[in-house]
C-alpha cells in the first residue's frame, strides 16, 4: 500500500517520518506496527531519526532531495504484513500546485498508486481569512482611546507590518496601500481544499480518497480539545468539505506531537528513558498514547 503524505511547507511531515521510523524500528511502543524489512537505502531515515533523537530541528525537505521511503510492516496484534511506501514530498510541491495549477506526471503516478492521504497541518502556519469589517470595531476602539496615540506614534517602517512585508497579513491604521491579489496570500483552508479537489478529480476519480488529517505540534494546543473540534474551529471550510464528502473522502483527525514539546525544552525531552515516550498521539476520541502508527492503521483498514 502506498500513502501520499501531503501538506504545505513547515507542517511537520518530515518530523513525523523521523519519529515514525524510530517507533517502527525500535519496537518501543506496544501494539504499534513494526518494521520487518526496509526497501532501498536507509541512510535518509537514519539521518532524520538521529536529528529527532537529538531534538535538533529537521531541515525543510527541498523538492530536489525528496525521498521515497518504503518498508514492510507487521501488525503484531493481527499478524498482518503490509508493504508501505510513503514518498516524503516537500511542502513546496503542494504550494506550487496551488499557485501554478500544475503538477508533474511523476507526482500523478505517485498519487494514482496511493491508497490514501496523510494531510499535515501545523497550528502555527495556518493563515486565516480576516475580514476588514470584523476588525473595524477593534480599530475604532483603538482610535478613540489612547490606542490612537499608540498607533500614530509607531513609525511606518519596521514596527508595524506593512502590506508588502513577507508573511505580513495585516495592516492597521495609518496609510494603507492595496496590493494586488496573489494566490500565495490565500488562506490555508482554501489551498488545502483545492489540493484535495485536484486529487479527487484526477488520480482518485471513481475511488475512495481516505484522508487522515494530522495536526502537528499538538502540544501547542491547550485545553481538552479533540482534534476534530480543532479542525472545525480553525479550518472550518476544510472541515465542511470533508464532512460533506465523507462518502468519497472518509476522514479522521489526529493530533500528534512528534517532538513532544518545543525544541527549546530538549533537555526535558531527553529525560525520557524511551525516546518514543516523547511522542504524544491524540486520537480522534481525545484519548492519548504514544503509538504514532495509529494514523497508518486507520488508513490500512479502509
Amino acid at each position: 500500500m502506498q500513502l501520499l503524505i501531503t501538506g504545505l511547507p513547515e507542517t511537520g511531515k518530515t518530523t513525523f517520518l523521523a519519529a515514525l521510523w524510530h517507533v517502527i524500528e525500535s519496537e518501543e511502543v506496544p501494539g504499534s506496527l513494526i518494521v520487518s524489512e526496509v526497501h532501498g537505502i536507509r541512510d535518509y531515515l537514519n539521518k532524520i531519526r538521529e536529528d529527532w533523537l537529538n531534538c535538533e530541528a529537521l531541515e525543510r525537505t527541498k523538492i530536489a532531495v525528496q525521498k521515497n521511503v518504503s518498508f514492510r510492516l507487521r501488525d503484531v496484534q493481527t499478524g498482518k504484513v503490509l508493504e508501505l511506501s510513503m514518498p516524503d514530498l516537500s511542502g513546496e510541491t503542494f504550494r506550487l500546485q496551488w499557485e501554478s495549477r500544475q503538477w508533474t506526471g511523476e507526482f500523478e503516478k505517485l498519487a494514482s498508486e496511493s491508497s490514501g492521504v496523510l494531510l499535515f497541518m501545523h497550528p502555527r502556519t495556518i493563515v486565516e481569512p480576516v475580514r476588514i469589517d470584523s476588525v473595524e470595531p477593534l480599530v475604532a476602539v483603538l482610535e478613540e482611546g489612547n490606542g490612537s496615540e499608540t498607533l500614530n506614534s509607531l513609525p511606518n517602517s519596521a514596527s508595524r507590518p506593512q502590506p508588502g512585508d513577507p508573511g505580513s497579513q495585516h495592516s492597521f491604521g495609518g496609510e494603507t496601500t492595496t496590493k494586488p491579489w496573489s494566490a500565495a496570500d490565500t488562506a490555508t483552508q482554501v489551498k488545502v481544499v483545492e489540493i484535495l479537489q485536484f486529487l479527487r478529480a484526477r488520480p482518485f476519480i471513481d475511488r475512495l480518497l481516505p484522508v487522515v488529517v494530522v495536526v502537528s505540534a499538538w502540544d501547542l494546543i491547550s485545553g481538552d480539545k479533540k482534534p476534530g473540534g480543532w479542525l472545525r474551529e480553525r479550518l472550518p471550510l476544510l472541515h465542511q468539505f470533508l464532512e460533506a464528502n465523507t462518502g468519497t473522502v472518509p476522514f479522521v483527525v489526529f493530533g500528534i506531537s512528534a517532538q513532544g514539546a518545543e525544541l527549546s525544552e530538549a533537555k526535558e525531552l531527553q529525560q525520557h528513558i524511551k525516546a518514543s515516550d516523547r511522542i504524544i498521539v491524540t486520537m480522534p476520541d481525545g484519548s492519548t498514547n504514544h503509538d504514532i502508527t495509529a494514523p497508518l492503521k486507520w488508513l490500512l483498514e479502509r
Partner: protein
Amino acid sequence: MNEELVKKDADPAAPEPTTGAEEAGAIIDLPSGGDLTPETAGCVTRAFLTRLVLLAGEAESGKTTLLATIYEKFNEGPFANLLFAGSETLIGWEKRCYLARVVSGAEKADTERTLGLQQRLLHLSLRDEGLENSSQHLLFTDFSGEVFKLIRDSTAECQRLGILKRTDHFVLLLDGSKVADTRSRHEALNNGMALLRSCIDAGMVGLRSFVDVVFSKYDLVAAAGQPGLDFQAYAVTTITRRFSQRLGRLRFHNVAARPEAHGMEFAYGVAELLRSWVNDSPYFVSQLAFPAQLDPSTSQFQSYLRVRFPDFCQIGVWI
C-alpha cells in the same frame, strides 16, 4: 472534470509520451479555479443536476458583494444549515472577497467592480448539514451592470442572453442606497421594472420562472426611516401588481450583505435566500410518494423512471 483538462487529455495533436522518463517529466495542467463561462460550465452541468442563479441589477447594486458574502460565510463555518462541499471556482471566489479582507491592505471593505460584457459563472457545491440529501450544485452568474443595461434596453439583446431562459432563480437587485434616496429612488425602481419587463417580453422569463426581488443594502433603507420604508412598500406593491401574474413565483427580500449601519449582522437576510435557491427550482416538483397513481398519459419512460428511482425527484413542468 474541467473542460480544459479534458481537452488536453483528448487533444489528438499532443504526441503521446513514449518513455517512462517522458511521462514522469510531463507537466499536467490542473483546473484553473477561475470563473467559468457558459461553455466551460459544462464540466459541472454535464456531471450534476445544477441550479442556475442569475443575479441581475444595475451597476453597483451589490450583485458581486452578495456572492462574496455567501462564500465568506462558508469560510467561517456552515451557513444556512448548509455545508460547503466544494467549488470549481475557488480562485474566482477568492478574488471577489479580496478587497474586503485585511490581507489586501485596504482600509475599508470593498468589492471590485465587475466590468465588461463577459458572462462569468461561479460554482458552489453545498450539502445539508444533516447529510440527508446528496450535494446540490449551484452556478451563480456574475455579470456586470452594463450587461443588464443592454438587455433592459433591447429585446434582441435580451434574447441573445440564452442563459436567462435556463435560470432556476432570477434575482433582481434593487440598490438600497438608491431606494433610500429621494433623488434616485424612482429611477432605481423604474430601471428594475424595465429590466424585468424586457426579460418577460422577450420570453426569457415567465410563468416557469422563480423571481426574487432583493432590496440590497437594506441597512441604508432602514436608516432612511419611515420615508425609506414607505417607498419600499410602494415598490413591492407596484412590482407585485404589474408582474406577479406573469411569473411562476415572485418574492421580496431585504438583504444587507455587508451592512454599514450598526445593528445588522454581516450577511443579513442572505441565509434564507440561499436556502431557497438550494431547495427550490421551477424544474422540479416535490418528491412523489411511491407507488404513485400514474396518470394514464404518463409515458413509458417516465413510468420506468418512477419504478427505477422511486426516491428521485420527478422532472416536470412547475405550472
